[in-house]
């Protein structure tokens, strides 16, 4: 437990001092929101599903820079050797990194989601607190597999390009579930109507957290 807390505390302290990761996460999302607006065209009405799609595409792209940097910080000065030679279990490292990624992503969304509502509010017919649940489940799914794959790409030559190349195909189902649920919520559907999608999102998060928990050991050792 001490190691788990120590790892998280260390990552958060470093991130707090190097603000560029977080700033670029938010900035990237703002850019996507803006570009998407150009893609829609002036004054066009879009469906709730499409609005939901825009939000999650923005979040997805912004998550990449966060996921990439939490792992690659261990490569500077080969800190990762310090982790590997220590008695800490690699699964603990996985859970700590996933928690940190979850925290960063949630923090970025605290800015991205309200901003989305300001920019695209007129396409959103209805809003409900269960949006927070959708966000949480998406974040869990995204950071579970994202943490594992960021470990792989940190060990490759082309870290920044490779992360989305490997990550995006695998998480298409997760994005599909989330967009469907959010679209229904934006359209004013009752919770029961999109609850099944949330169950699928939760299942996705569970499956890939388990996969990460067991596979991270191999990934960590090769870095």
């Amino acid at each position, binding site marked *: 437990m001490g190691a788990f807390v120590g790892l998280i505390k260390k990552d958060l302290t470093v991130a707090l001092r190097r603000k560029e990761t977080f700033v670029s996460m938010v900035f990237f999302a703002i850019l996507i929101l803006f570009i998407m607006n150009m893609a829609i065209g002036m004054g066009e009405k879009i469906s709730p599903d499409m609005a939901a799609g825009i939000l999650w595409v923005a979040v997805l792209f912004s998550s990449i820079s966060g996921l990439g940097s939490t792992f690659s910080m261990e490569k500077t000065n080969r800190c990762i050797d310090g982790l590997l030679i220590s008695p800490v279990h690699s699964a603990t490292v996985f859970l700590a990194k996933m928690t940190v990624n979850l925290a960063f992503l949630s923090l970025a969304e605290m800015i991205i989601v309200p901003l989305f509502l300001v920019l695209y509010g007129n396409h959103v017919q209805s809003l409900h607190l269960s949006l927070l649940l959708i966000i949480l489940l998406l974040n869990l799914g995204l950071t579970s597999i994202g943490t*594992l794959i960021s470990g*792989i790409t940190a*060990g490759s*030559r082309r870290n920044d390009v490779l992360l989305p190349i490997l990550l995006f195909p*695998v998480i298409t*189902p997760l994005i599909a579930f989330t967009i469907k649920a959010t679209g229904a919520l934006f359209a004013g559907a009752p919770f029961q109507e999109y609850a099944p999608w949330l169950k699928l999102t939760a299942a996705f998060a569970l499956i890939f957290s388990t996969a990460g928990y067991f596979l991270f050991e191999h990934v960590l050792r090769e870095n």
Partner: protein
Amino acid sequence: MSRIRPIGLLSSVSIALFALSIYYVLLVVPVEREMGIVQKIFYLHVPMAITGFIFFFLAFLFSIFYLKRQNRKWDIFAASSVEIGLLLTTLVLITGSIWARPIWNTWWTWDPRLTATFILWLIYSAYLILRLSVDNEGKRAVFCAVMAIVGFVDVPIVFLSARIWRSIHPVVVKTRSIAIEPKMGIALLLFMAAFISLGAILLWLRTSLSIFEGKLLSLEKQGGN
């Protein structure tokens, strides 16, 4: 010379199977009433899809073996399986398109099975890009093994999500309901056997090529010192 024999035998069997399948499909199986002659591509399309899927499953198994044993052989088997699976999946997408043009009146539609197959294609193409992006052999083997496992675990979720996605949209295309006649069934099975034998041959050739490549490389390394 004796090393070449089993593969030669398998090749003869495969060629015979393909010849028989093509003869059977073209001359024995009746032309389907509604879709006409184009429907016959179906006998290629479905066995290729299933065989491709079998090879992705093999890649998954070989990758688990690699992580357990760290034996280079399993990495080569996994990579070769992905390549063969991807080749077949590409052909599935192409034959699907050719079939869709006259039947659905479009080359491409976001039908759930097409979409899912396309995502599958993306996942395993990414796997091959990863192979190109890591130089160190041991590292590459481990990373790719992890991705092959993750990719295969994702497959059922991908198919499920594609199905659910469609259930919300208006149903543009009715599900193809083809009453499988015994002759059609036999044609499918024949092509199935033909593609599995072809896949086995490709796996054999591809893995032995990689193993020789590895041997050559290690010889070069030893000589270079």
